């Protein structure tokens, strides 16, 4: 067996193990050299990214990968072996790619952005732990393991939100975030216990199979409600979004970027539970679950944009923009579910064309939202770095001194409001088209939210970058090159995705959408000797 094959076999485990090891080596390296530590963190995330892309090429060519921690035999003396399985399919790897891109950009950006701070060994340790937790949530095939990674992500990100402890608001946002996260995670654990008590299994595929055999009992319904409520809260859907603008707004900009990944990992968990774990019985509650997701999506979009209009803080405004964007994903995936449930019983999720289109659009929007909102957060961070100011009322005329940052902001604002030729347009068009088939009002609200987003961010562009030069910002200089590089990476991906959306959709998003709606691939290994 050559070295590439061997690395590939162990890639799911190494993707988690490398950042985890890196997290705890960081304080040691910090003792030797501060600069070495920053570069070490970049290298660690870079190596992890290599493994993620290696896995991606393998999975898209040959189907899901499974990695077993513990016994390789499923049963010993007729009793089921307790072990943890990582099951990585096209959807998991799609999310992992988003996560690792965000993480990589965040460490590169931190290099200069956090330079003048103290306590950076802890910062990098927590950042790498957050990456570990996020990737773990996306790759694991075990319910309890999912809970553990959820908690790792929550603890690390709450500590990072409150990283600037000299700011009272940051500490309050961190406290709010950890309280919300813990309550959410505890209800997830309670729901896992309900399923475990019934089916004596923690493996997602095993539970899905048992659910298919037993039907849809009352306790399953309670567990499903708990999962949806808790993960939607962690995923920042309105009316449970209250923590999100605080946490995004008060965290350092690089952490806001990574928080998007953590939020989307929770949304991934929601979709995974609804489609895969409950996949065998989803046709029964599909109407109500679909409509619930659609309604949550609509409320989230409207509340997000309406609240964003009245904000006067740069980062908090983008936080509300992020809330609005999350609504699109819930709307699209909910539409997919609802279309199927309304239709003829012979039509399944795979054969209903608009259902597939809605889910493809929703998943494509996951990556586009991460990039667009992420870029805006990085620009806000760059403005803060240069001026030490986030209030929109006090900023102005920065385009004179920060021309590259201004260009990146314009790219981000056009992409986030869904204008061609940027990536937001591609996914939003798919969402408008497919939601129109369910109910025209849905697509009207979606388009209205996009227009409002455009209006809001044009206002921000005007009040921060345009207008007369203010005397106190005369000495402002462009931000360091590593921050520009981080923004340029995201802007580049945005433009490439916007110009060639079909390539991304066919090669990356559609396999993920298929993996989501068709859980037989995920359940396959149960009969495949594992």
């Amino acid at each position, binding site marked *: 067996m050559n070295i590439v094959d061997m690395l590939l076999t162990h890639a799911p485990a190494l993707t988690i193990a490398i950042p985890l090891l890196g997290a705890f080596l960081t304080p040691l390296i910090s003792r030797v050299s501060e600069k070495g530590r920053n570069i070490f963190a970049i290298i660690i995330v870079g190596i992890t990214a290599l493994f993620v892309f290696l896995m991606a090429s393998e999975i898209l060519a040959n189907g899901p990968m499974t990695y077993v921690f513990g016994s390789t035999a499923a049963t010993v003396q007729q009793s089921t072996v*307790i072990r943890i399985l990582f099951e990585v399919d096209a959807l998991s790897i799609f999310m992992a790619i988003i996560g690792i891109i965000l993480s990589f950009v965040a460490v590169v950006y931190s290099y200069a952005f956090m330079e003048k701070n103290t306590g950076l060994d802890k910062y990098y340790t927590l950042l790498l732990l957050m990456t570990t937790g996020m990737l773990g949530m996306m790759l694991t095939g075990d319910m*309890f393991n999912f*809970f*553990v990674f959820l*908690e790792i992500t*929550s*603890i690390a990100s*709450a*500590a990072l939100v*409150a990283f600037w*402890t000299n700011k*009272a*608001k940051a*500490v*309050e946002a*961190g*406290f709010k975030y*950890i*309280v919300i996260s*813990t*309550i959410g995670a*505890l209800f997830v*654990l*309670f729901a896992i*216990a309900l399923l*475990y*008590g019934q089916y004596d299994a*923690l493996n997602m595929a095993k539970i899905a199979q048992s659910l298919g055999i037993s039907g849809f009992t009352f306790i399953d319904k309670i567990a499903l409600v708990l999962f949806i409520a808790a993960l939607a809260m962690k995923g920042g859907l309105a009316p449970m979004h209250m923590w999100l603008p605080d946490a995004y707004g008060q965290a350092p900009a690089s952490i806001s970027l990574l928080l998007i990944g953590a939020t989307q990992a929770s949304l991934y968990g929601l979709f995974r539970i609804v489609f895969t774990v409950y996949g065998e019985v989803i046709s029964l509650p599909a109407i109500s679950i679909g409509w619930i997701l659609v309604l949550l999506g609509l409320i989230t979009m409207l509340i997000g944009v309406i*609240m964003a209009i*009245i*904000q006067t803080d740069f980062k908090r405004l983008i936080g509300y923009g992020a809330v609005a964007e999350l609504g699109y994903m819930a709307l699209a995936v909910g539409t997919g579910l609802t279309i199927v449930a309304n239709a003829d019983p012979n039509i399944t999720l795979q054969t209903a064309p608009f259902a597939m289109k809605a889910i493809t659009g929703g998943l494509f929007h996951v990556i586009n939202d991460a990039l667009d909102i992420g870029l805006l957060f990085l620009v806000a961070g760059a403005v803060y770095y240069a001026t030490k100011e986030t209030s929109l009322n006090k900023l102005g005329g920065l385009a004179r001194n920060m021309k590259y940052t201004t260009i990146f902001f314009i790219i981000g604002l056009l992409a986030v409001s869904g204008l061609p030729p940027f990536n937001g347009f591609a996914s939003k068009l798919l969402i408008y088209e497919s939601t129109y088939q369910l109910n025209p009002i849905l697509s009207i609200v979606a388009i209205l939210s996009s227009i409002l987003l455009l209006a809001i961010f044009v206002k921000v562009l005007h009040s921060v970058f345009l207008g007369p030069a203010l005397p106190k910002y005369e000495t402002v200089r462009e931000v360091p090159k590593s921050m520009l590089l981080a923004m340029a990476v995201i802007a580049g991906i945005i433009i490439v995705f916007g110009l060639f959306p079909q390539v991304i959709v066919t090669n990356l998003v559609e396999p993920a959408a298929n993996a989501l709606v068709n859980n037989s691939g995920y359940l396959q290994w149960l009969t495949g000797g594992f």
Partner: protein
Amino acid sequence: MIANIPYLTVAGLIIIGLYTLLFKKNLIKMVIGITILQSGVNLFLITLGYRMGSVAPIFTGNADNPVMSYPVPQALTLTSIVIGVAVLALMLSLVIHIYRHHGSLHVSKLGGDDQ
């Protein structure tokens, strides 16, 4: 009836925890509420693994009482408790910082225009 007492306790603990979180204005009390909620969930996990008249799942070679309770929920609970300690420590350290900034633990005293 006697077998249901653990489940009733679980429900009671979770309701008390949620009540504390929703209606208490003191941050430390909110943290206590989360801990109570956590105890409820942990107790639920432990209860799931118990079988009537069973012993602890330690293999001693003594075949007198072969009925053992399930070990998996106990392992899960142990993990959950460890996570709980980490969360508790982090929350209390954040409360300390909040107290340093505001000199109060009452939620209405916390600053900020909350829109």
